[in-house]
């Protein structure tokens, strides 16, 4: 069975590498090289800043998510907890520019805090433009994601463990020390890598909130090479550099991680004894909620404009909505399957390797991959019919890291618990999935599906390259309106997109959304 799993993993791996490598190769060999190679010193500065801001963003996002996830784990009965967790899924699908306007609506020069400071005749609220703004926006995007992933692990602690803890009379500090922190430590490297890579690949946030070209990431250089200098070869080489640098960091970060006997999929978030200060937990959750919901509320407030009712009956908007849904759901289904295959392989082989590999697509710029595939499809003469399948396929690629984040630890845990039994029963393949893995991983599968769907719902890089022939998604439509002075429409569309996101977030598993069923 181990071999069979390795085979499944190898197939998934080859597909993944092929889907990523083929377009890079196509761009490298296209003979479309520009005149010059970017200067070394410039590249060095850019790489350094990329790593600096990504490191800071990852450390802060995940560092702050730890107390939030702990507080949420402590309070399974908190009123509104389920809604809050669903709202926490929303930033994932918010296009960067919409998130930026939300952030600016709170922390900007004309933002809420600035206005409040004015009322109380305080000195002006400090400008966020610069490294602070970049990190702030990245924390806004990634703290909720990290919280959801951490909480999923914290709630996987088996009920027996809690009973033992109660029987031994473990106090709040003991529980933190012996149960929660080890659980967190187990998933921390992976979540740190995930957020780090997301921040490495950040583009709009870095430029818009960076305040000046001192804040330039490799992704900016890649975008410039691909778009403005039209040097696909250079873009591909820079993309490879970005992948190499991030992989190096991710592997280095992962080396300190001791693989643990993960028990995901056994607990149901129940059995945890009441411990710790209710007030402190409440305060932490409250602060996190205000931090995440503030910018979201700013987007909602901006979206409740006069154009909203007319947009809701606009056939173009409806069509974009349907397109977004079809692409998102198709990408989520296929992404789930691909991530499950990788997870099976990870359970049988070098887990950390698959862990990191499944994150690679985060740092391979989707614009580069999309451009490469466009070139390939055109060369092969299949550009006409292949457009929509390619868009879905590339969205699958983007969705894999998120789905894998959930499935790799869960499948590994399940394999350790159920393998012997399954082998003894001769259960393999599809039958095993249907009878064992499927039902037992239901919650993780749902979470993986939801995250994957949310990610492709917010995609702009892929659709921007392939769109145009009638294939328009909501984020693309939003950008189109923004590009022709219709900021009101764009704000309203952001609201529509958020509503769609919330609808998808509603499908997240009950336990992750905090439903302490007995």
């Amino acid at each position, binding site marked *: 069975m181990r071999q069979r799993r390795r085979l499944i993993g190898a197939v998934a791996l080859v597909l993944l590498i092929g889907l990523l490598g083929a377009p890079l190769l196509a761009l490298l060999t296209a003979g479309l090289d520009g005149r010059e190679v970017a200067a070394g010193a410039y590249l060095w500065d850019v790489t350094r800043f990329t790593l600096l801001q990504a490191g800071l963003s990852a450390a802060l996002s995940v560092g702050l998510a730890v107390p939030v996830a702990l507080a949420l784990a402590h309070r399974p009965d908190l009123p509104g907890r389920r809604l809050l967790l669903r709202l926490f899924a929303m930033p994932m699908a918010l296009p960067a520019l919409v998130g930026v306007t939300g952030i600016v*609506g709170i922390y900007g020069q004309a933002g809420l805090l600035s206005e409040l400071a004015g009322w109380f005749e305080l000195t002006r609220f400090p400008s966020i433009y610069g490294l602070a703004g970049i990190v702030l926006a990245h924390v806004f995007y990634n703290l909720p994601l990290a919280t959801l992933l951490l909480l999923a692990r914290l709630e996987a602690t088996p009920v027996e463990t809690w009973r033992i803890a109660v029987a031994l009379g473990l106090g709040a500090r003991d529980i933190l020390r012996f149960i929660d922190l080890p659980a967190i430590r187990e998933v921390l490297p992976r979540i740190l890598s995930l957020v780090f890579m997301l921040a490495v690949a950040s583009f*709009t946030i870095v430029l818009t909130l960076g*305040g000046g070209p001192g804040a330039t990431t490799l992704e900016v250089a890649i975008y*410039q090479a691909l778009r403005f200098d039209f040097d696909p070869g250079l873009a591909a080489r820079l993309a490879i550099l970005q992948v190499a640098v991030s992989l190096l960091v991710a592997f280095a970060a992962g080396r300190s991680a001791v693989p643990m006997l993960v028990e995901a999929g056994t607990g149901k978030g129940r059995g945890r004894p009441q411990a710790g200060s209710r007030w402190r937990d409440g305060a932490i959750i409250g602060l996190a909620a205000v931090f995440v919901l503030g910018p979201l509320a700013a987007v909602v407030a*901006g979206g409740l404009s006069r154009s909203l009712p007319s947009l809701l009956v606009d056939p173009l908007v409806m069509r974009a909505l349907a397109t977004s849904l079809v692409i998102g759901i198709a990408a989520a289904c296929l992404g789930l399957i691909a991530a499950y295959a990788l997870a099976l392989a990870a359970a049988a082989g070098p887990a950390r390797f698959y862990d990191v590999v499944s994150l690679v697509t985060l740092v391979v710029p989707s614009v580069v991959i999309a451009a490469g595939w466009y070139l390939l499809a055109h060369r092969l003469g299949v550009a006409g019919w292949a457009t929509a399948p390619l868009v879905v396929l590339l969205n699958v690629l983007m969705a894999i890291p998120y789905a894998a984040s959930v499935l790799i630890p869960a499948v590994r845990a399940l394999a350790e618990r159920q393998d012997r039994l399954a082998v003894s029963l001769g259960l393999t393949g599809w039958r095993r999935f249907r009878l064992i893995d499927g039902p037992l991983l239901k919650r993780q599968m749902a979470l993986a599906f939801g995250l994957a769907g949310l990610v492709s719902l917010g995609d702009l890089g892929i659709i921007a390259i392939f769109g145009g022939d009638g294939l328009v998604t909501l984020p693309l439509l939003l950008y189109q309106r923004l590009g022709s*002075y219709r*900021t009101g429409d764009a704000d309203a569309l952001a609201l529509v997109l958020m509503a769609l996101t919330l609808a998808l977030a509603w499908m997240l598993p009950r336990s992750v959304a905090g439903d302490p069923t007995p």
Partner: protein
Amino acid sequence: MLRFLLTAALLAWSCLPVRAGDTLTVLTYESFTADWGPGPAIERAFEAECGCDLKWVAVGDGVAILNRLKLEGDAPTADLALGLDNNLIAEARASGLFARHGQSLKGLKLPVAWTDDTFLPFDYAHFAVVYDREKLADPPRSLQALVDGGGAGKIVIEDPRTSTPGLGLLIWIKAVYGDKADEAWTKLRRRVLTVTPGWSEAYALFTKGEAPMVLSYTTSPAYHLIAEKSDRYAALDFPEGHPLQIEVAAKLAKAKSPALADKFLAFMLSPGFQDQIPTQNWMLPAATTSQPLPPEFEQLVTPAKTLDLAPGDVAANRRAWTDEWLKAMSR
């Protein structure tokens, strides 16, 4: 899931090119073909005139048009590209993908002389600093005042590495300050709130009130005057002069319907096309319209002086100027 895959397949199928006898495919940018843009009316007018089918293919912006054509190389899906601009011309010409337009240039009404035999203008506007009257009582009245004025009244600008307006400002400062451009950038830097990747991000920050000034076009206030009935935003007229953005169209050398493409280029300079430009594309028409421009356009700034750099110069120096900008701005 099968149902979703089927739907996806259907979506793909619907994207197949229509195999009609007389079809003209025009590659352009998205806001041109949007339902509120000039595309739909132009399509109706041209189809009535030529008895053919006009099909738009729209990508993000002018740069994306050129990139897609380069990706497609010898087998373009389009017959004509509409929406490149004067600063992209040198690069577009070097690609060798375009054919001569063969049109008479007599009907053109541009602030500068136009003699290009491949790229045909269809509209234009000057780059300008647009400001918010409610936030800025005393805006800078010249480029020098903007550069020297220090931190009072911030401006959002676009990045020349990733956007056409950013490149426009680069050219502007270079044209006015020449060798002293890096000093000018160092001074201007104190006024710059942030540098965005494109026009959309900059204009969104501006209309959200983040900064009282933004780098945009002289025609931007027309949108607010006509569509929003608001005179809150106005462009500033700088005596040093303003650089131009001229949007052009060109026929592809490998066009499948070259005759229709020629027809369209001729139609482009007629009122049937030009009438749609001012209030649908929010630019100034490059040729005669059937009606005078709406009265609101009289409130717009018309720069007395146009800074005109040869496209070849821009292409040759873009990288050096960008490096200079990078150094000055990140110092």
